[in-house]
């Protein structure tokens, strides 16, 4: 009898261990807030964000300051260092997402279309935040009117905006005996070509050891020449316009004809950043977020505006991240309080101090807090001017971006030099239009 009981005990233990290891596979999603809101009770908010170590430290400081100013709200901060989008997708699909979470401008379209974000327009109107002081495109990329983005109600508030500028290696310029690019006027296509040719060096075997300009952030070239991705109503692919073709062909020529820019092959092993860091590229596109890293580099560098096409304007794409509230959050009021703090002046100050981001408020941008005189880059005001002229990246135009994926796949033929811009852009237009329509039917109704 005892032997039998022992057997049963052993089997039960083994069985429950196995079952336990299996069930740990289904993890528990982040708790939503648990306490009831009534005067005097503490509200628990959960907040998900990603961020490098420095940003994480700043965020913790900000949250502590917020909790001190709002004793009835506690914030549970979940720092997700990588794979943020996928983890958020899982939690959102599970139905119990955090109250407040970061939403990149790329994820925004998908999540707002699926009805996961809370419409905060009414809160924003009552909040007293000076929207006119914010960069227009920063606000715009978190708006949705049910059909198209960049119009309608506010579903998130911007955390930051990151315009793109041209970083250049001053030491390489001095070695080549070339003047630094102007920080006031973007150089033209012709000037960029001439400059890059002087900065491209070959070794005795004819192999290029130094490129004048890194992989091109060609969106700015396209826009400043008068071209664009989609028509104003987002219904049609229009890069095959005369201006668009001209800009794209210019970029392809820099790679294949004049060979002053590395093509994809060089960057598959050593990324563009690594090449810049090791002095193999003289000029490279980058955002503000590179500044803390670049400040540790061994050579002298500065920033200049992105080159411009025939429109002679500052132009480039900018990335952005926003704060959003989960649609089914049980504490939308408190959640918005947190967002107001983070996206407002307080949050912007701390984030800017670190050097990571451009403040979303124009008035804050022109202060020493941002310009940080005495630290590189010397011409930090380039970022501000760039922020004025920048546009959201192409991935923010529509909720479904299959058309963009198709474009990115097909355009590689141009970078390989296998075809001309005119031929290729006209060839791929029907396929892209089809993907655009299929992925975003609500725009066409």
């Amino acid at each position: 009898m005892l032997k039998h009981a022992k057997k049963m005990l052993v089997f039960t233990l083994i069985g429950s261990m196995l079952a336990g290891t299996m069930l740990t596979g289904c993890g528990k999603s982040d708790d939503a807030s648990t306490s009831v809101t009534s005067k005097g009770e503490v509200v628990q908010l959960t907040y998900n964000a990603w961020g490098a170590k420095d940003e994480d430290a700043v965020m913790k400081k900000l949250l502590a300051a917020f909790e001190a100013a709002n004793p009835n709200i506690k914030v549970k901060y979940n720092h997700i260092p990588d794979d943020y989008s996928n983890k958020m997708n899982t939690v959102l699909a599970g139905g119990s997402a955090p109250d407040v979470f970061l939403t990149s401008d790329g994820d925004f379209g998908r999540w707002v279309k699926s009805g996961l974000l809370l419409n905060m327009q009414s809160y924003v109107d009552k909040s007293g935040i000076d929207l006119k002081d914010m960069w227009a495109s920063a606000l715009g990329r978190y708006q949705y009117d049910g059909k198209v983005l960049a119009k309608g109600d506010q579903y998130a508030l911007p955390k930051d905006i990151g315009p793109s500028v041209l970083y250049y290696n001053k030491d390489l310029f001095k070695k080549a005996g070339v003047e630094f690019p102007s920080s006031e006027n973007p150089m033209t296509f012709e000037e960029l070509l001439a400059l890059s040719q002087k900065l491209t060096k070959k070794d005795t075997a004819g192999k290029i050891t130094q490129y004048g300009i890194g992989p091109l952030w060609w969106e700015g070239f396209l826009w400043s020449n008068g071209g664009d991705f989609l028509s104003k109503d987002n219904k049609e692919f229009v890069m095959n316009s005369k201006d668009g073709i001209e800009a794209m062909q210019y970029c392809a020529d820099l790679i294949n004809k004049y060979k002053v820019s590395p093509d994809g092959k060089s960057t598959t092993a050593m990324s563009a950043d690594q090449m810049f860091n090791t002095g193999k590229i003289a000029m490279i596109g980058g955002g503000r977020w590179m500044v803390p890293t670049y400040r540790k580099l061994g050579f002298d560098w500065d920033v200049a505006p992105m080159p411009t096409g025939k429109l002679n304007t500052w132009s480039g794409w900018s990335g952005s991240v926003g704060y959003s509230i989960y649609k089914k959050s049980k504490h939308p009021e408190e959640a918005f309080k947190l967002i107001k703090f983070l996206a407002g002046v307080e949050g912007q100050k701390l984030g800017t101090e670190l050097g990571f981001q451009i403040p979303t408020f124009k008035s804050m941008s022109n202060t020493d807090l941002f310009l940080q005189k005495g630290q590189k880059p010397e011409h930090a005001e380039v970022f501000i001017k760039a922020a004025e002229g920048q546009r959201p990246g192409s991935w923010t135009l529509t909720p479904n971006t299959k058309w963009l994926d198709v474009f990115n796949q097909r355009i590689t033929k141009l970078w390989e030099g296998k075809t001309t811009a005119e031929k290729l852009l006209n060839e791929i237009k029907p396929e892209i239009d089809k993907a655009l329509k299929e992925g975003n039917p609500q725009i066409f109704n």
Partner: protein
Amino acid sequence: MSKNGDLNVQLNVKSVEFNVNKKKKFKRKYIYGYLFIAPPFIGFILFGLIPIVYSLYISMTSFDLFNPAVFTGLDNYKKLFLEDPLFWQSLFNTIYAAIGIPIGIGLSLLIAMGLSKNIKGINFFRTAFFLPSICSVVALTLMWKWIFNADYGVLNNILGFFHIQGPNWLGSSTWAMPALIIQGVWGGLGTGMILYIAALKNVPRTFYEAADIDGANNWDKFWHITLPAISPTTFYLAITAVIGAMQAFVPYMLMTNGGPDYSTTTIVLYLYNNAFRYMNMGYASAMAWLLFVVIMAMTIINFKVSSKWVHYD
């Protein structure tokens, strides 16, 4: 006498008891067996069978993961067959990639044959060839990215010695897939080699001796004795390689993300993008089921044809 009698009575009683308890004891014995297989079995039902059946249902709906699924019947399948050239492109790419299978199996056989004789350093070689199979895929991916680098990579440098201008492997829509085939073959050599070494050892020596007596040369011995004797292993490798090739995903996503120009987009990669980039769960599920049908068909064909060339002894 009475003792024996008692014994008989005892034995009879015991045997009656035994018959009555037979059923009970049987069940009792088997209960432990069932208990043992219960956890993995329940796991399979919960995390395998139910999701699979659910995905069949999802494949007939439009589902973005966040909102309830909307039933659409066979729309997804119709779209896949008739309106999605990219699906056919990915199917073609996947089958193109399968070229690596016979190459891989052949190479691992050669290596196994080389390593089945007791040459010096045999343990080192066996370890070296098997190492890729147990290395992290991500680490290997980084390594291969360096190897394939057009300017500084090892491969193009070696080709340079022969005065061949190596192509821009991962950036060329013609050469990206061959590059990934090379990478795949290299990664799979280890498993095939191990299995073949074991199979070769098991070929009865008497066959070779008989062949020698009959005056067979090395090629005859290989073709008529070795190959048929190891054919069960070849069959196993072929089946698993085909199933694996049809589901190839990780290297294609990490090395080239399906590019350039969709030349390295395999079915599963395209499926993944549809599911998690475009949030088209229904469409992706339909693709998954079509893939299942294709793999099933290939496996059945493999099995049917196997009777012609696989010899079990």
